[in-house]
């Protein structure tokens, strides 16, 4: 068992937001989805106040050892999520973490109040890879703006608040520190790295222009950022980015993560989370071998 923000979890492997749709998976795999659920908690895709259709296709590009996506956060909006999705997600055999995003603090407060009031929701994850309406910069790209954002929101969240950091910033550890100082209960990282692909005639391939890179190509970046953040904050860290085998999970845990999330690898193998969790159970001793960073010794101890 693992305890994360007071939530009991069967193992330390969860999904990255937006990389697993449990409702669609139940359509594809039936009851087996609940019986063999690969994660110890389920993180919803990002919910916004109003419904979003998402970006025009194409939305995917297979990159070197990875994937660039420009999905555009399609979702039913807060009301649709609470009415249609939440009852179905509540049937999952694991705790539920709802990921939310808004472009102003007022929007996010409305989201976290409504989501946090629901018993089915164990924790809230805040997606801060969203442009600030005033500056145009991502809210999570700058420690001061992120700190102010979390400060405004934290009192309204009745559940543990996880801040999902963006890697597209000069100093992710400073941003994490600001989140922790303003009351975030945990941070999760990394989100996708901003990326793009071109058509043969030199235009942007993705319908949304630029997108986010994930998959094996980003693991080394994730390891560096988790290590940097673990040196600066004491709150739990959910590490993710390119985890495709047990050894990657072990390395992120050694770097200071409390949980790891699997994302793109689930596209290749829907049971990837379960496979990695099983590997962690069977080879716990290996965690001590990966002490590449100062943070690692703290985790191993």
């Amino acid at each position, binding site marked *: 068992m693992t305890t994360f923000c007071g939530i009991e979890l069967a193992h330390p492997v969860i999904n990255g937001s*937006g*990389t*697993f*749709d449990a*409702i*669609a*998976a139940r*359509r*594809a*795999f*039936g009851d*087996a*989805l609940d019986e*063999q659920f*690969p994660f110890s908690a389920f993180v919803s*895709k990002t919910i916004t106040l109003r419904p979003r*259709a*998402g970006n*025009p*296709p*194409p*939305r*995917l*590009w*297979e*990159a*070197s*050892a*990875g*994937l660039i*996506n420009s*999905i555009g956060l*399609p979702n039913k909006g807060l009301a649709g999520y609470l009415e249609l999705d939440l009852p179905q997600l509540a049937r999952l055999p694991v705790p539920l973490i709802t990921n939310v995003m808004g472009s102003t603090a007022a929007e996010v407060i409305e989201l976290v109040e409504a989501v946090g009031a629901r018993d089915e929701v164990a924790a809230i994850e805040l997606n801060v890879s969203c442009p600030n309406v005033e500056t145009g910069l991502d809210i999570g790209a700058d420690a001061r703006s992120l700190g102010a954002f979390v400060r405004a929101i934290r009192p309204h969240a009745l559940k543990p608040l996880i801040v999902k950091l963006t890697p597209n910033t000069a100093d992710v550890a400073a941003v994490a520190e600001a989140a922790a100082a303003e009351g975030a209960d945990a941070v999760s990282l990394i989100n996708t790295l901003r990326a793009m*692909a071109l058509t043969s005639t030199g235009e942007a*391939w993705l*319908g949304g222009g630029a997108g986010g890179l994930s*998959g*094996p190509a980003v693991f080394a970046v994730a390891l560096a950022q988790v290590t940097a953040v673990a040196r600066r904050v004491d709150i739990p860290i959910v590490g993710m980015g390119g985890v495709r085998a047990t050894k990657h999970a072990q390395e992120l845990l050694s770097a200071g993560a409390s949980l790891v999330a699997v994302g*793109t690898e*689930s*596209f*290749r*193998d*829907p*049971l990837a989370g379960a496979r990695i969790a099983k590997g962690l159970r069977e080879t716990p001793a290996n965690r001590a071998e990966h002490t590449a960073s100062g943070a690692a010794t703290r985790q191993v101890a």
Partner: protein
Amino acid sequence: MSQASLERRRLSVAGNDEVGSYRVLRLSDPDGPPPTPGQFSMLTAVDRWGGGDDERPFLPRAFSVMRVRDGEAHYLLEDVGPGTNRLCELRTGDEVWVLGPLGQGFRDPRDDRRAVLAGGGVGIAPLAIWQDALLERGASHALLLGFRDGEHAIGANLLRCAQVATDDGALGHHGYVTELLASELDENPHAEVYACGPPLMLEAVRALCEERGVPAQLALESGMACGFGACFGCVAPLRDGSYLRVCVDGPVVDGALLAEVESHAGSPA
């Protein structure tokens, strides 16, 4: 519809046969869930998936099940990118990860309509298993197939009693399969059309059927990352401005739902 297990199945290659410009990858799958015609699977070679040019392929590739016969599942391949290239070179005894069958397949014709199957290129694959099902129940149907040239048209031998069109006139009707379809609907308008092929062909089929008031079930193709609704990458726009996911809401879609079949054949290939 048939349901996949959550666990990918590791299957052996029983054969990989050259058929004109295509290959038929035969996987030994005696215990697999029988697919509904039109459903698809995600395929990944167990060995050397990745590490090619540009470190691709990385994601699994989606293929309609072409046929299930004698304990084997058949998939039709055309070498058009790193994923299909790797699958094309597999030999007997090599292994493939298979997730499937997935998605929504073909539904029976409405109102005693006659099934008219129209396929283009590698899109003939789901029509083969659908024709097998129609033949098994003795259902009258027409089969119209289009190819770019004679080498590709050899693929027509994988199905039965096809009327063939080729872009270059090497075999059958010199022109498009949609011209054969228009003639067929002139003769037998009480039809339901089942089509799979490149986006331009599917759009022509959709528009023709809309004009004639004939229902059309279109098997869409899209680049996919997952095949089971997780990534939201394989969307097709609907008339109402929203999107459907080709993997879980399709790949077989009622043509009336679409304003047009968009030509965005996505990476990966």
